[in-house]
Protein backbone atom coordinates (compact mmCIF):
# COMPACT_ATOMS: atom_id res chain seq x y z
CA UNK A 1 0.00 0.00 0.00
CA UNK A 2 1.57 3.29 -1.13
CA UNK A 3 1.06 6.59 0.66
CA UNK A 4 2.07 10.04 -0.50
CA UNK A 5 4.47 11.82 1.82
CA UNK A 6 6.32 15.13 1.87
CA UNK A 7 9.82 14.85 3.26
CA UNK A 8 12.31 17.59 3.98
CA UNK A 9 15.73 16.19 3.19
CA UNK A 10 18.85 18.36 3.34
CA UNK A 11 16.67 21.46 3.18
CA UNK A 12 14.72 20.37 0.10
CA UNK A 13 11.08 19.32 0.03
CA UNK A 14 10.30 16.05 -1.74
CA UNK A 15 6.84 14.74 -2.43
CA UNK A 16 7.12 11.03 -2.95
CA UNK A 17 4.96 7.92 -2.88
CA UNK A 18 6.28 5.41 -0.36
CA UNK A 19 5.27 2.02 0.96
CA UNK A 20 3.32 2.53 4.18
CA UNK A 21 5.73 0.20 5.97
CA UNK A 22 8.80 1.46 4.14
CA UNK A 23 11.93 2.37 6.05
CA UNK A 24 13.40 5.84 5.67
CA UNK A 25 16.66 4.27 4.48
CA UNK A 26 15.01 2.77 1.42
CA UNK A 27 13.42 6.06 0.43
CA UNK A 28 16.65 7.98 0.85
CA UNK A 29 18.69 5.54 -1.20
CA UNK A 30 16.27 4.11 -3.73
CA UNK A 31 13.75 6.95 -3.95
CA UNK A 32 15.95 10.02 -3.70
CA UNK A 33 19.29 8.59 -4.80
CA UNK A 34 21.09 9.67 -1.65
CA UNK A 35 23.36 6.66 -1.52
CA UNK A 36 25.84 8.10 0.95
CA UNK A 37 23.64 6.58 3.64
CA UNK A 38 24.52 2.89 3.62
CA UNK A 39 22.48 -0.24 4.12
CA UNK A 40 24.23 -2.63 6.46
CA UNK A 41 22.51 -4.97 8.87
CA UNK A 42 19.03 -3.47 8.34
CA UNK A 43 18.23 -4.20 11.98
CA UNK A 44 19.75 -1.31 13.93
CA UNK A 45 22.91 -3.17 14.78
CA UNK A 46 25.68 -1.52 12.75
CA UNK A 47 24.97 2.21 12.45
CA UNK A 48 26.01 2.76 8.84
CA UNK A 49 22.50 3.96 7.96
CA UNK A 50 22.63 6.77 10.55
CA UNK A 51 21.05 10.08 9.52
CA UNK A 52 19.88 13.08 11.51
CA UNK A 53 16.19 13.69 12.10
CA UNK A 54 15.58 17.09 13.66
CA UNK A 55 19.29 17.13 14.49
CA UNK A 56 19.26 13.78 16.27
CA UNK A 57 20.99 10.65 15.06
CA UNK A 58 18.68 7.78 14.16
CA UNK A 59 19.00 4.43 12.41
CA UNK A 60 17.19 5.12 9.14
CA UNK A 61 16.71 1.38 8.60
CA UNK A 62 14.44 1.27 11.64
CA UNK A 63 12.46 4.48 11.17
CA UNK A 64 9.26 4.35 9.20
CA UNK A 65 9.34 6.93 6.42
CA UNK A 66 5.89 8.11 7.40
CA UNK A 67 7.14 8.79 10.94
CA UNK A 68 9.64 11.22 9.43
CA UNK A 69 6.94 13.48 7.98
CA UNK A 70 7.23 17.09 9.08
CA UNK A 71 10.76 16.59 10.39
CA UNK A 72 14.08 17.81 9.06
CA UNK A 73 16.17 14.97 7.70
CA UNK A 74 19.88 15.44 7.12
CA UNK A 75 22.03 12.91 5.28
CA UNK A 76 25.78 12.95 4.68
CA UNK A 77 25.11 14.72 1.37
CA UNK A 78 23.58 17.59 3.34
CA UNK A 79 26.76 18.33 5.27
CA UNK A 80 28.68 19.62 2.29
CA UNK A 81 25.72 21.07 0.44
CA UNK A 82 27.56 24.28 -0.43
CA UNK A 83 30.52 22.39 -1.87
CA UNK A 84 32.75 22.79 1.18
CA UNK A 85 33.40 19.77 3.34
CA UNK A 86 32.05 19.79 6.88
CA UNK A 87 34.82 20.00 9.50
CA UNK A 88 34.02 16.42 10.48
CA UNK A 89 34.45 15.21 6.92
CA UNK A 90 37.74 17.09 6.65
CA UNK A 91 38.94 15.63 9.93
CA UNK A 92 38.12 12.08 8.81
CA UNK A 93 40.16 12.70 5.64
CA UNK A 94 43.06 14.36 7.43
CA UNK A 95 43.41 11.69 10.10
CA UNK A 96 42.97 8.77 7.72
CA UNK A 97 39.94 7.59 9.67
CA UNK A 98 38.63 5.77 6.63
CA UNK A 99 39.58 2.36 5.33
CA UNK A 100 36.87 0.61 3.33
CA UNK A 101 34.62 3.59 4.01
CA UNK A 102 31.34 1.76 4.28
CA UNK A 103 30.70 2.79 7.89
CA UNK A 104 32.14 6.28 7.59
CA UNK A 105 28.99 8.25 6.82
CA UNK A 106 27.24 6.73 9.82
CA UNK A 107 30.10 7.69 12.12
CA UNK A 108 30.17 11.23 10.78
CA UNK A 109 26.42 11.67 11.25
CA UNK A 110 26.39 10.43 14.84
CA UNK A 111 29.44 12.58 15.58
CA UNK A 112 27.59 15.53 14.07
CA UNK A 113 24.98 15.31 16.81
CA UNK A 114 27.66 14.91 19.47
CA UNK A 115 29.48 18.06 18.34
CA UNK A 116 26.23 19.99 18.13
CA UNK A 117 25.80 19.34 21.86
CA UNK A 118 29.36 19.76 23.08
CA UNK A 119 32.39 21.32 21.49
CA UNK A 120 34.93 19.64 23.71
CA UNK A 121 34.08 15.98 24.18
CA UNK A 122 36.67 13.81 25.92
CA UNK A 123 37.61 10.39 24.61
CA UNK A 124 35.09 8.66 26.82
CA UNK A 125 32.25 10.86 25.54
CA UNK A 126 33.31 10.25 21.94
CA UNK A 127 33.54 6.49 22.39
CA UNK A 128 30.17 6.44 24.14
CA UNK A 129 28.62 8.52 21.33
CA UNK A 130 29.80 6.12 18.62
CA UNK A 131 28.85 2.97 20.55
CA UNK A 132 25.99 2.30 18.14
CA UNK A 133 28.26 2.21 15.09
CA UNK A 134 30.47 -0.63 13.96
CA UNK A 135 33.72 -0.41 11.99
CA UNK A 136 35.38 -3.65 10.96
CA UNK A 137 38.55 -2.03 9.58
CA UNK A 138 39.98 0.79 11.62
CA UNK A 139 39.90 -0.33 15.24
CA UNK A 140 38.17 2.99 16.02
CA UNK A 141 41.34 4.80 17.09
CA UNK A 142 41.52 7.04 14.03
CA UNK A 143 37.78 7.67 14.15
CA UNK A 144 38.00 8.90 17.71
CA UNK A 145 40.99 11.00 16.72
CA UNK A 146 39.06 12.51 13.80
CA UNK A 147 36.11 13.49 15.95
CA UNK A 148 38.40 15.04 18.51
CA UNK A 149 40.20 16.97 15.74
CA UNK A 150 36.90 18.25 14.35
CA UNK A 151 35.85 19.33 17.84
CA UNK A 152 39.02 21.39 18.08
CA UNK A 153 38.13 23.10 14.83
CA UNK A 154 40.07 20.86 12.45
Amino acid sequence: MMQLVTLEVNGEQHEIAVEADGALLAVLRDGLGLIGTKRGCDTGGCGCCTVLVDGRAVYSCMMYTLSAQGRKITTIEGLAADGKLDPLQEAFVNTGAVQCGYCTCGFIMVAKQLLSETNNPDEDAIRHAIAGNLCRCTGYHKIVEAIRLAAKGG
Partner: protein
Amino acid sequence: MSLRQLKEFCIPGDWAEVDAQLGRYGARAFVLAGGSFVHGLDARGLLHEVEALIDIRNLGLDYIRAESGGLRIGATTTFAHLQAAPTLGESPWLGALADALACPPRQIRNVATVGGSVAASCPYFDPPTALMALDARVAVVAGGARREFPLGELFAGTFENSLRRGEIIVELFLPRPTGRSASAFLKLEGNANDLAIVNCAASLEIDAQGRCSEARIALGGGVGDAIARATSAERLLQGRVADDEVLWSAAEAVGEDIDPHTDHRASAAYRLAVAKVLTRRALTCALARSARTPT
Protein backbone atom coordinates in the same frame (compact mmCIF):
# COMPACT_ATOMS: atom_id res chain seq x y z
CA MET B 1 10.08 -3.85 7.11
CA SER B 2 7.47 -5.98 5.48
CA LEU B 3 4.00 -5.86 6.93
CA ARG B 4 2.28 -7.62 4.06
CA GLN B 5 -1.28 -6.87 5.12
CA LEU B 6 -0.62 -3.20 5.91
CA LYS B 7 -3.20 -0.81 4.49
CA GLU B 8 -2.55 2.39 6.38
CA PHE B 9 0.01 4.21 8.49
CA CYS B 10 -1.58 7.02 10.44
CA ILE B 11 -0.39 9.62 12.91
CA PRO B 12 -3.51 10.75 14.80
CA GLY B 13 -3.58 14.25 16.22
CA ASP B 14 -6.19 13.54 18.87
CA TRP B 15 -7.83 10.71 20.77
CA ALA B 16 -11.00 10.79 18.68
CA GLU B 17 -8.90 9.90 15.65
CA VAL B 18 -7.17 7.14 17.61
CA ASP B 19 -10.49 5.66 18.67
CA ALA B 20 -11.79 5.87 15.10
CA GLN B 21 -8.77 3.98 13.78
CA LEU B 22 -8.96 1.39 16.53
CA GLY B 23 -12.67 1.00 15.81
CA ARG B 24 -11.99 0.55 12.12
CA TYR B 25 -9.16 -1.97 12.40
CA GLY B 26 -9.75 -3.61 15.80
CA ALA B 27 -7.19 -6.31 16.55
CA ARG B 28 -5.51 -5.62 13.21
CA ALA B 29 -4.28 -2.22 14.40
CA PHE B 30 -0.84 -1.93 15.95
CA VAL B 31 0.11 1.07 18.05
CA LEU B 32 3.66 2.35 17.89
CA ALA B 33 5.53 5.26 19.42
CA GLY B 34 9.24 5.34 18.56
CA GLY B 35 8.84 2.25 16.41
CA SER B 36 12.42 1.13 16.92
CA PHE B 37 11.49 -2.46 17.80
CA VAL B 38 8.59 -2.95 15.40
CA HIS B 39 10.96 -4.57 12.92
CA GLY B 40 12.04 -6.94 15.68
CA LEU B 41 8.47 -8.02 16.33
CA ASP B 42 7.83 -8.27 12.60
CA ALA B 43 10.93 -10.41 12.05
CA ARG B 44 9.57 -12.83 14.64
CA GLY B 45 6.33 -13.18 12.69
CA LEU B 46 4.25 -11.40 15.30
CA LEU B 47 2.77 -8.72 13.05
CA HIS B 48 1.62 -10.68 10.00
CA GLU B 49 -2.00 -9.66 10.44
CA VAL B 50 -1.42 -5.97 11.08
CA GLU B 51 -3.38 -3.75 8.68
CA ALA B 52 -2.85 -0.36 10.32
CA LEU B 53 0.07 1.20 12.14
CA ILE B 54 -0.99 3.98 14.51
CA ASP B 55 1.84 6.30 15.50
CA ILE B 56 0.80 8.01 18.78
CA ARG B 57 3.67 10.51 18.80
CA ASN B 58 1.39 13.55 18.45
CA LEU B 59 -0.94 12.94 21.39
CA GLY B 60 0.92 15.05 23.94
CA LEU B 61 2.35 12.05 25.81
CA ASP B 62 5.93 13.31 25.71
CA TYR B 63 6.37 14.70 29.24
CA ILE B 64 8.24 14.22 32.51
CA ARG B 65 6.62 15.51 35.69
CA ALA B 66 8.48 15.36 38.98
CA GLU B 67 5.93 15.49 41.80
CA SER B 68 6.30 15.13 45.54
CA GLY B 69 4.86 11.62 45.33
CA GLY B 70 7.03 10.46 42.47
CA LEU B 71 7.81 10.80 38.79
CA ARG B 72 5.29 10.73 35.96
CA ILE B 73 6.63 9.83 32.54
CA GLY B 74 4.48 10.16 29.44
CA ALA B 75 4.45 7.06 27.27
CA THR B 76 6.03 8.66 24.20
CA THR B 77 8.87 10.26 26.14
CA THR B 78 12.07 9.16 24.43
CA PHE B 79 14.98 7.67 26.32
CA ALA B 80 17.07 10.72 25.33
CA HIS B 81 14.47 13.15 26.67
CA LEU B 82 14.21 11.26 29.95
CA GLN B 83 17.97 10.89 30.23
CA ALA B 84 18.35 14.67 29.97
CA ALA B 85 15.81 15.39 32.71
CA PRO B 86 17.59 17.09 35.64
CA THR B 87 15.64 15.04 38.17
CA LEU B 88 17.30 11.88 36.92
CA GLY B 89 20.80 13.07 37.69
CA GLU B 90 19.77 14.59 41.01
CA SER B 91 17.81 11.69 42.48
CA PRO B 92 19.72 8.64 43.80
CA TRP B 93 16.45 6.72 44.02
CA LEU B 94 16.26 6.97 40.21
CA GLY B 95 19.88 5.86 39.77
CA ALA B 96 18.91 2.52 38.20
CA LEU B 97 16.89 4.26 35.52
CA ALA B 98 19.72 6.69 34.73
CA ASP B 99 22.13 3.74 34.47
CA ALA B 100 19.81 1.76 32.21
CA LEU B 101 19.06 4.67 29.89
CA ALA B 102 22.78 5.08 29.24
CA CYS B 103 23.03 1.56 27.77
CA PRO B 104 21.26 1.73 24.39
CA PRO B 105 23.16 3.49 21.61
CA ARG B 106 22.38 7.11 20.89
CA GLN B 107 20.43 6.25 17.74
CA ILE B 108 18.04 4.17 19.84
CA ARG B 109 17.83 6.64 22.74
CA ASN B 110 16.76 9.35 20.30
CA VAL B 111 13.82 7.30 19.08
CA ALA B 112 12.79 4.60 21.56
CA THR B 113 10.12 5.56 24.06
CA VAL B 114 9.46 4.56 27.63
CA GLY B 115 5.96 3.34 26.83
CA GLY B 116 7.09 1.41 23.79
CA SER B 117 9.92 -0.28 25.66
CA VAL B 118 7.53 -1.78 28.19
CA ALA B 119 4.74 -2.52 25.69
CA ALA B 120 7.18 -4.64 23.67
CA SER B 121 7.50 -6.95 26.71
CA CYS B 122 11.01 -7.84 25.65
CA PRO B 123 12.88 -9.20 28.68
CA TYR B 124 16.21 -8.29 27.07
CA PHE B 125 15.65 -4.52 27.18
CA ASP B 126 17.36 -2.44 29.86
CA PRO B 127 15.03 0.40 31.00
CA PRO B 128 12.12 -1.97 31.79
CA THR B 129 14.30 -3.90 34.26
CA ALA B 130 15.12 -0.63 36.03
CA LEU B 131 11.46 0.39 35.99
CA MET B 132 10.51 -2.93 37.61
CA ALA B 133 12.97 -2.36 40.46
CA LEU B 134 11.52 1.13 40.88
CA ASP B 135 8.05 -0.31 41.42
CA ALA B 136 6.64 1.38 38.31
CA ARG B 137 2.92 1.53 37.68
CA VAL B 138 1.47 1.62 34.19
CA ALA B 139 -1.51 3.76 33.19
CA VAL B 140 -3.50 2.74 30.14
CA VAL B 141 -6.56 4.21 28.45
CA ALA B 142 -9.20 2.71 26.20
CA GLY B 143 -12.10 4.72 24.88
CA GLY B 144 -11.53 7.43 27.48
CA ALA B 145 -11.44 5.02 30.46
CA ARG B 146 -8.21 4.84 32.40
CA ARG B 147 -6.81 2.09 34.60
CA GLU B 148 -3.50 1.64 36.39
CA PHE B 149 -1.63 -1.46 37.46
CA PRO B 150 1.87 -2.59 38.48
CA LEU B 151 4.33 -2.91 35.60
CA GLY B 152 4.91 -6.59 36.36
CA GLU B 153 1.31 -7.32 35.40
CA LEU B 154 1.94 -5.96 31.92
CA PHE B 155 4.44 -8.68 31.05
CA ALA B 156 2.52 -11.79 30.02
CA GLY B 157 5.49 -13.46 28.34
CA THR B 158 8.26 -12.78 25.88
CA PHE B 159 6.94 -10.20 23.37
CA GLU B 160 3.49 -10.66 24.88
CA ASN B 161 1.78 -8.00 26.95
CA SER B 162 -1.47 -8.18 28.88
CA LEU B 163 -3.10 -5.10 27.32
CA ARG B 164 -6.73 -5.58 26.46
CA ARG B 165 -7.94 -4.78 22.98
CA GLY B 166 -7.92 -1.05 22.35
CA GLU B 167 -5.83 -0.19 25.40
CA ILE B 168 -2.89 2.17 24.93
CA ILE B 169 -0.18 2.86 27.50
CA VAL B 170 -0.23 6.57 28.31
CA GLU B 171 2.00 6.95 31.36
CA LEU B 172 4.39 5.30 33.78
CA PHE B 173 4.49 6.40 37.40
CA LEU B 174 7.44 5.83 39.69
CA PRO B 175 6.50 6.25 43.36
CA ARG B 176 9.14 8.13 45.34
CA PRO B 177 10.38 5.93 48.20
CA THR B 178 10.30 7.33 51.71
CA GLY B 179 13.50 7.86 53.65
CA ARG B 180 16.99 7.23 52.36
CA SER B 181 16.82 5.42 49.07
CA ALA B 182 18.97 4.68 46.07
CA SER B 183 19.05 2.31 43.13
CA ALA B 184 21.48 0.99 40.55
CA PHE B 185 21.43 -0.99 37.31
CA LEU B 186 24.09 -3.16 35.69
CA LYS B 187 24.22 -5.07 32.44
CA LEU B 188 26.45 -7.67 30.83
CA GLU B 189 26.37 -7.60 27.05
CA GLY B 190 28.37 -9.04 24.18
CA ASN B 191 29.15 -5.65 22.67
CA ALA B 192 28.08 -2.04 23.17
CA ASN B 193 25.11 -2.41 20.83
CA ASP B 194 23.76 -5.76 21.94
CA LEU B 195 20.87 -6.87 24.09
CA ALA B 196 21.57 -8.02 27.62
CA ILE B 197 23.00 -11.43 28.40
CA VAL B 198 21.79 -10.57 31.89
CA ASN B 199 20.82 -7.24 33.42
CA CYS B 200 19.93 -6.39 37.00
CA ALA B 201 18.45 -3.44 38.85
CA ALA B 202 18.38 -3.05 42.61
CA SER B 203 16.53 -0.47 44.67
CA LEU B 204 17.04 -0.10 48.42
CA GLU B 205 15.38 1.95 51.13
CA ILE B 206 17.50 2.28 54.25
CA ASP B 207 16.01 3.19 57.65
CA ALA B 208 17.56 5.29 60.40
CA GLN B 209 19.23 2.20 61.91
CA GLY B 210 20.88 1.37 58.61
CA ARG B 211 18.60 -1.59 57.87
CA CYS B 212 16.92 -2.29 54.54
CA SER B 213 13.32 -1.35 55.07
CA GLU B 214 12.59 -2.17 51.44
CA ALA B 215 14.52 -4.00 48.76
CA ARG B 216 13.49 -4.57 45.18
CA ILE B 217 15.61 -6.53 42.71
CA ALA B 218 14.71 -7.14 39.07
CA LEU B 219 16.57 -9.21 36.50
CA GLY B 220 16.31 -9.33 32.73
CA GLY B 221 18.18 -10.85 29.81
CA GLY B 222 17.70 -14.52 29.23
CA VAL B 223 16.66 -15.31 32.78
CA GLY B 224 13.01 -16.03 32.09
CA ASP B 225 10.09 -15.35 29.76
CA ALA B 226 9.67 -11.93 31.36
CA ILE B 227 11.63 -9.63 33.63
CA ALA B 228 11.82 -11.35 37.00
CA ARG B 229 11.58 -9.93 40.51
CA ALA B 230 14.05 -11.67 42.79
CA THR B 231 11.71 -12.00 45.74
CA SER B 232 13.79 -14.62 47.56
CA ALA B 233 16.77 -12.30 47.52
CA GLU B 234 14.58 -9.36 48.53
CA ARG B 235 13.29 -11.26 51.58
CA LEU B 236 16.84 -11.90 52.76
CA LEU B 237 17.56 -8.18 52.74
CA GLN B 238 14.33 -7.08 54.39
CA GLY B 239 14.91 -5.65 57.86
CA ARG B 240 18.62 -6.42 57.89
CA VAL B 241 21.79 -4.38 57.67
CA ALA B 242 23.18 -5.08 54.23
CA ASP B 243 26.69 -6.13 55.19
CA ASP B 244 28.90 -8.28 52.97
CA GLU B 245 27.50 -11.54 54.27
CA VAL B 246 23.90 -10.48 53.65
CA LEU B 247 24.73 -9.22 50.15
CA TRP B 248 26.43 -12.50 49.22
CA SER B 249 23.47 -14.48 50.60
CA ALA B 250 20.98 -12.35 48.71
CA ALA B 251 22.94 -12.74 45.48
CA GLU B 252 23.07 -16.51 45.95
CA ALA B 253 19.31 -16.61 46.53
CA VAL B 254 18.67 -15.10 43.09
CA GLY B 255 19.04 -18.62 41.71
CA GLU B 256 15.65 -19.45 43.23
CA ASP B 257 13.95 -16.56 41.41
CA ILE B 258 15.12 -16.93 37.83
CA ASP B 259 14.97 -19.54 35.08
CA PRO B 260 17.92 -18.85 32.78
CA HIS B 261 18.02 -20.33 29.31
CA THR B 262 20.69 -21.11 26.75
CA ASP B 263 20.86 -19.26 23.44
CA HIS B 264 23.45 -17.86 21.05
CA ARG B 265 24.46 -15.22 23.61
CA ALA B 266 25.19 -17.43 26.60
CA SER B 267 24.48 -20.71 28.34
CA ALA B 268 21.97 -21.03 31.16
CA ALA B 269 24.76 -21.89 33.60
CA TYR B 270 26.73 -18.81 32.65
CA ARG B 271 23.64 -16.62 32.97
CA LEU B 272 22.99 -17.97 36.45
CA ALA B 273 26.54 -17.20 37.53
CA VAL B 274 26.38 -13.72 36.01
CA ALA B 275 22.98 -13.00 37.56
CA LYS B 276 24.41 -13.61 41.02
CA VAL B 277 27.43 -11.41 40.38
CA LEU B 278 25.37 -8.57 38.89
CA THR B 279 22.88 -8.74 41.76
CA ARG B 280 25.61 -8.38 44.36
CA ARG B 281 27.27 -5.55 42.45
CA ALA B 282 23.99 -3.69 41.83
CA LEU B 283 23.11 -3.98 45.52
CA THR B 284 26.58 -2.77 46.49
CA CYS B 285 26.28 0.19 44.15
CA ALA B 286 22.79 1.09 45.39
CA LEU B 287 24.00 0.84 48.97
CA ALA B 288 26.96 3.12 48.28
CA ARG B 289 24.67 5.65 46.62
CA SER B 290 22.26 5.51 49.55
CA ALA B 291 25.13 6.30 51.93
CA ARG B 292 25.64 9.55 50.05
CA THR B 293 21.95 10.38 50.18
CA PRO B 294 20.65 12.79 52.82
CA THR B 295 17.81 11.40 54.90
